[in-house]
């Protein structure tokens, strides 16, 4: 029996984990699971013994006994660490868990993004739909979605989401509000259809805010439609890229409309989505303006998607500026949370929400899985960013999903198909990053977004440390946060 134990234990080494400290205490993020554990002194001591070297079972037990632990404690420590794969043995081969190459054929839809028009009244220079790196091929296709196509999309969503009690529709463009007449019809139709099936349906939209009116705001509030406004900050930054075709900036047009929207729409959070570009990296100033001056509930930031050759892209120095300011806001987020208050910096809130669940993503997002985009013509695509792009059509609402094309898209995008991700500890949350960003940058939706790796790892570590600090100093906040986000 003794020989069997020795045979089974082999030599131990650290498993695939990311260690971090918060509030002076040690934590681990277990990469194979997306789980977060606080370590006690003993568990930390056991991992420290394996920092530089591999040890046999007997050696590790002896090292812990030498460190003042009883034999039984040492055995228990090793057993627990082995169980969670915090340490692994070279003789116990890990069960290979290959990623599923294909999702279940009946994977139910959860959300549709309806591009109700591909027309826009602005001409933002960095736009992924109309700018230099566009992939859309809208020539000869309808510019506005018809009511028939929209109703067909609603029916398609309800049919393809069997088993889900609640589904969601996001309205998108182009500029969404250029087809508000249709939007209103769709909300009424979809609500009635869902109610007839005793199911729930919720709505949201993204807009540049130039076309908001009192009537529209009242409708959005009345129907509890979530609103995301694409905008870049105070006048000097907003008007740098977010301009009319004449070159005139849009800030002066949207400012009074935004104030009315935020004052008049009380049923859903109003969020701003900021695109960071060369020269538009002043994250803290942008945040202060949008949150404090205009009154947005939440503000999220993302660097502009581009091929890596555009003059509006952020260079490495710019990214350093962005990250430094992200950290400033992250510290503020934690201060708020320790006082029990919600902070509006979406980039932290989103990650904390995922960390609470311990997500471990097969794909970076739900595109092609629970979410699809619909073009004005009714073509299906993985998400709104691929709308009207012939090379990425996944079928049509009248004929359904093209399962072969979807399978190809999802196989490429699976995290296990991205070689660089296999050794990265941040992959449970990142899974290689946006399919569309990868296509624009590398010409392949299945390529890992390597230009962001360092940034993603640093940011994930920051959010983990916030999580650790909260678990020590204000664990109730995490519970309330989870309940509020519907995660628990």
């Amino acid at each position, binding site marked *: 029996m003794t020989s069997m134990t020795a045979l089974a234990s082999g030599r131990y080494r650290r498993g695939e984990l990311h260690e971090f400290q918060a509030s002076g205490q040690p934590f681990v993020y277990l990469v194979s699971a997306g789980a977060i554990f606080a370590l006690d002194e003993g568990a930390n001591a056991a991992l420290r013994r394996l920092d530089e070297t591999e040890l046999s079972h007997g050696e590790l037990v002896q090292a812990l006994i030498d460190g003042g632990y009883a034999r039984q404690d040492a055995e228990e420590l090793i057993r627990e660490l082995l169980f969670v794969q915090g340490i692994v043995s070279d003789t116990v081969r890990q069960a290979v868990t290959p990623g599923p190459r294909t999702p279940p054929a009946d994977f139910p839809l959860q959300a549709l993004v309806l591009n109700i028009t591909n027309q826009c009244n602005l001409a933002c220079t960095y736009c992924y739909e109309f700018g230099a790196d566009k992939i859309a091929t809208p020539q000869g296709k309808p510019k506005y979605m018809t009511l028939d196509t929209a109703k067909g999309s609603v029916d398609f969503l309800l049919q393809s989401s069997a088993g889900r009690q609640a589904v969601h529709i996001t309205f998108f463009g182009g500029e969404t509000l250029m087809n508000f007449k249709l939007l209103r019809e769709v909300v009424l139709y979809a609500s009635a259809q869902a109610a007839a099936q005793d199911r729930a349906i919720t709505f949201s939209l993204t807009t540049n805010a130039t076309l908001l009116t009192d009537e529209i705001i009242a409708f959005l509030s009345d129907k509890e439609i979530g609103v995301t406004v694409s905008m870049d900050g105070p006048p000097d930054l907003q008007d740098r890229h977010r301009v009319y075709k004449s070159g005139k900036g849009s800030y002066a047009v949207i400012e009074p409309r935004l104030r009315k929207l935020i004052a008049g729409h009380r049923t859903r959070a109003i969020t701003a989505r900021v695109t960071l570009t060369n020269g538009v990296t002043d994250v803290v100033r942008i945040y202060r303006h949008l949150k404090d001056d205009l009154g947005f509930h939440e503000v999220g930031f993302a660097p502009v998607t581009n091929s890596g050759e555009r003059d509006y892209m952020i260079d490495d120095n710019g990214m350093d500026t962005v990250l430094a300011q992200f950290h400033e806001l992250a510290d503020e987020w934690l201060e708020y949370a320790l006082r029990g208050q919600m902070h509006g910096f979406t980039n932290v809130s989103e990650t904390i929400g995922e960390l609470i669940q*311990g997500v471990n993503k097969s794909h970076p997002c739900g595109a092609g899985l629970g979410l699809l985009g619909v073009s004005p013509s009714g073509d299906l695509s993985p998400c709104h960013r691929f709308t009207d792009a012939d090379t990425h059509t996944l079928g049509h609402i009248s004929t359904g999903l093209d399962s072969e094309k979807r399978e190809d898209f999802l196989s490429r995008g699976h995290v296990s198909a991205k070689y660089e991700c296999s050794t990265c500890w941040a992959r449970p949350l990142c899974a290689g990053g946006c399919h569309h960003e990868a296509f624009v940058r590398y010409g392949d939706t299945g390529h890992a977004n390597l230009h962001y790796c360092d940034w993603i790892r640093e940011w994930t570590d920051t959010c983990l440390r916030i999580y650790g600090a909260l678990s020590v100093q204000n664990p109730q906040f995490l519970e309330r946060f989870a309940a509020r986000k519907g995660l628990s």
Partner: protein
Amino acid sequence: MKHLRPLNLKAARIDQSASLLEEDVVALQQQPPKPHIPMGCTLSFSPGWEVDAGGGTAGLCQPVERDIYDCYVTCFWPVQVPDHVNYSPDWAANCAVATKDWRNLDLVFP
């Protein structure tokens, strides 16, 4: 788990499965708390290796020597004992009661 405190939902699930495992597999002779094994029973089914919950053989409902007949007659472990079916049909003929007559069992060389 005692040394790892779960902090998110995924960790809580791992912790839960760890506690299920702890109750599922126990060493027969582990120090307190001892698992409950009815007197006379063994959980080890390796012929000749059975022990009761106290680590002894006296309290088992059958003498371990009885196993040799199961191995012999049913051939379920023919490598260890003479093969009743193929070449040693009379091997146990002189051994009516194993605890008394085991000396009559001879070596065989197939």
